[in-house]
């Protein structure tokens, strides 16, 4: 019997289907749209099958090509990588179901191939244990994303795609410079091996590669001065793609920063500086979101704000802070992924992205509006929802060893939550109580599209009402990161 709990499958399955879709597109015609669904259903099964293994051993390592690391490339999944890969597979699955009913524009096979490639690259980025592979996965993701952002091929989409391409490829080059500097200093590309050899480097020797890697990943992760592409690219992409871009891509980039900062670089001097970046990102995102008229643009700016929030929690560099960051990542991925899917269905019905045209939708699209409200409440952090627990955790973590600066940042976070609440309530108020002036025939989105939304919404509701297993798991994951168990476990299990 084949052991399916193998992290390599998480990358190999979608990559195989990518090429299958591209090759079979000419004779399967529109039948190719079912292939991504199969790919991500398999991926979801594999990532769920990894849970018992990871819980038992702490980590699952798979090596390639029959060599031992550091000579071979390895895939290492620990608790942090596990939950992110589950979320990536889940979002990939529901978004590909959504695509069955959403994408009717040609060339379909190219869209589905790129979409599968995008999620494959993101999963790859999350589970790789090799720093050059991280770069390759980053570029695979970016190139797929550039293509998908420009998929509609209208003026706005092409321009957004080009802008993203210019920034993304500069980011890729910076990341590569950082990686090659680490290689020059240590002579190896395996993350664990590098981590053991960087411990004797001085702060100055580590700072330059760190700055380069941080800039490169920061462009993808939309940190404040580097995020000019995001508010254009996310709205221009088809909604299912925006859901992946917002839900996983920024999270995956921040994941890579967390992973590398905690295993390889291991500085303490840098966190204050990261905190400032995070707060600026938070303020910029939320305040800009408040002034948007275009609903997808508003959600895109809100993504920037959320990224700032969990990056702030990470930069506290405590177990509780990281736990809050991971919880917020889960909350953000599920609710923002769902919001983009809901909004995609609404835009299809209304034919406009302007918030004012959404007036009265709450009465006509009851199910969609209900789940939009749940996603919005969870992002705001209203009490029964998961967002409340994660925000509470972040605030408690910040106040744990409070100094004046941290108290000030908590005040900023609370203020920004109010701003966030203001624009989401404005949207909900227009939707539920606004008067529709033009009498347009609006009906509920199709069942297939609702299915994806309902799946994500149900998962969000389940973890909202039974948060303790998730919270415990995140606590263990955070403790592993802080205690550098990644290195010890990898050494024990033959990752090196």
């Amino acid at each position, binding site marked *: 019997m084949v052991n399916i709990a193998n992290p390599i499958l998480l990358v190999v399955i979608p990559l195989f289907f990518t090429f299958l879709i591209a090759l079979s597109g000419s004779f399967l015609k529109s039948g190719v749209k079912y292939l991504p669904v199969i790919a991500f259903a398999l991926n979801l099964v594999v990532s769920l099958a990894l849970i018992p293994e990871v819980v038992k051993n702490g980590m699952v390592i798979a090596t390639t090509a029959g060599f031992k690391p550091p000579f071979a490339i390895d895939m290492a999944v620990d608790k942090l990588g596990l939950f992110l890969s589950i979320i990536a597979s889940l979002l990939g699955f529901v978004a590909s179901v959504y695509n069955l009913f959403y994408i009717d524009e040609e060339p379909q096979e190219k869209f589905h191939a790129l979409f599968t490639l995008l999620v494959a690259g993101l999963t790859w980025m999350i589970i790789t244990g090799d720093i050059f592979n991280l770069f390759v996965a980053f*570029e695979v993701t970016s190139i797929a994303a550039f293509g998908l952002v420009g998929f509609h*091929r209208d003026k706005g989409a092409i*321009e957004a795609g080009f802008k993203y391409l210019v920034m993304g*490829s500069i980011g890729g080059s910076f990341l590569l*410079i950082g990686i090659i500097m680490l290689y020059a200093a240590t002579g190896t590309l395996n993350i664990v091996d590098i981590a053991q050899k960087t411990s004797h480097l001085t702060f100055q020797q580590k700072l330059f590669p760190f700055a380069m890697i941080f800039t490169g990943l920061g462009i993808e992760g939309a940190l404040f001065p580097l995020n000019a592409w995001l508010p254009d690219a996310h709205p221009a992409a088809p909604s299912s793609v925006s859901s992946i871009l917002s839900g996983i891509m920024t999270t995956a980039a921040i994941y890579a920063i967390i992973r590398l900062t905690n295993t390889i670089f291991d500085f303490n001097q840098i966190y204050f500086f990261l905190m400032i970046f995070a707060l600026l990102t938070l303020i910029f995102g939320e305040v800009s979101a408040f002034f948007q008229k275009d609903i997808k643009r508003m959600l895109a700016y809100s993504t920037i704000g959320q990224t700032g929030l969990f990056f702030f929690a990470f930069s506290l560099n405590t177990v509780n802070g990281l736990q809050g960051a991971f919880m917020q990542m889960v909350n953000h991925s599920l609710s923002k992924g769902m919001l983009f899917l809901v909004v995609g269905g609404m835009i299809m019905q209304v034919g406009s992205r302007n918030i004012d045209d959404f007036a009265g939708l709450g009465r006509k699209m009851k199910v969609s509006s209900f789940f939009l409200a749940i996603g919005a409440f969870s992002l705001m952090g209203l009490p029964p929802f998961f967002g409340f627990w994660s925000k509470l955790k972040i605030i408690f973590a910040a106040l744990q060893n409070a100094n004046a600066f941290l108290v000030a940042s908590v005040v900023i976070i609370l203020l920004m939550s109010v701003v966030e609440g203001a624009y989401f309530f404005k949207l909900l108020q227009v939707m539920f109580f606004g008067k529709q002036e033009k009498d347009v025939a609006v009906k509920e989105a199709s069942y297939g599209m609702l299915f994806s939304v309902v799946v994500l919404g149900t998962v969000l509701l389940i973890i909202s009402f039974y948060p303790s297993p998730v919270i415990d798991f995140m606590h263990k994951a955070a403790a592993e990161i802080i205690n550098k168990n990644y290195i010890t476990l990898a050494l024990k299990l033959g990752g090196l």
Partner: protein
Amino acid sequence: MIYYVGSFLLIALGLYAVIIKKNLIKILIGLDLIASGVNLLIISIGYVKGGTAPIFSRAGLKASMMVDPIPQALTLTAIVIDASEMALAVAFVVLLYKYYGTLDIKKIRSLKW
């Protein structure tokens, strides 16, 4: 040493072109310069003066006399990635030119830059 200086000059030149130039094609050339600079940097890190290819082709060759093969493999990967990125970028530029009839970035402003 000269290689390091050269590669960082190339990268700086490319960044300058991307940030300052207003012509889309010149921006693409800038991106390509950055990529070439990075590739040169990678190669020069693995370079050993007077070294041979990393193959034990004759007796008496020691590992210290060979150039490091890993950076070369990395460069090949990076070149492939850059090529596909460039192809996509050119496709974008062709479409932009079709829509706007110009390559001047200041005239292409349906979005806020």
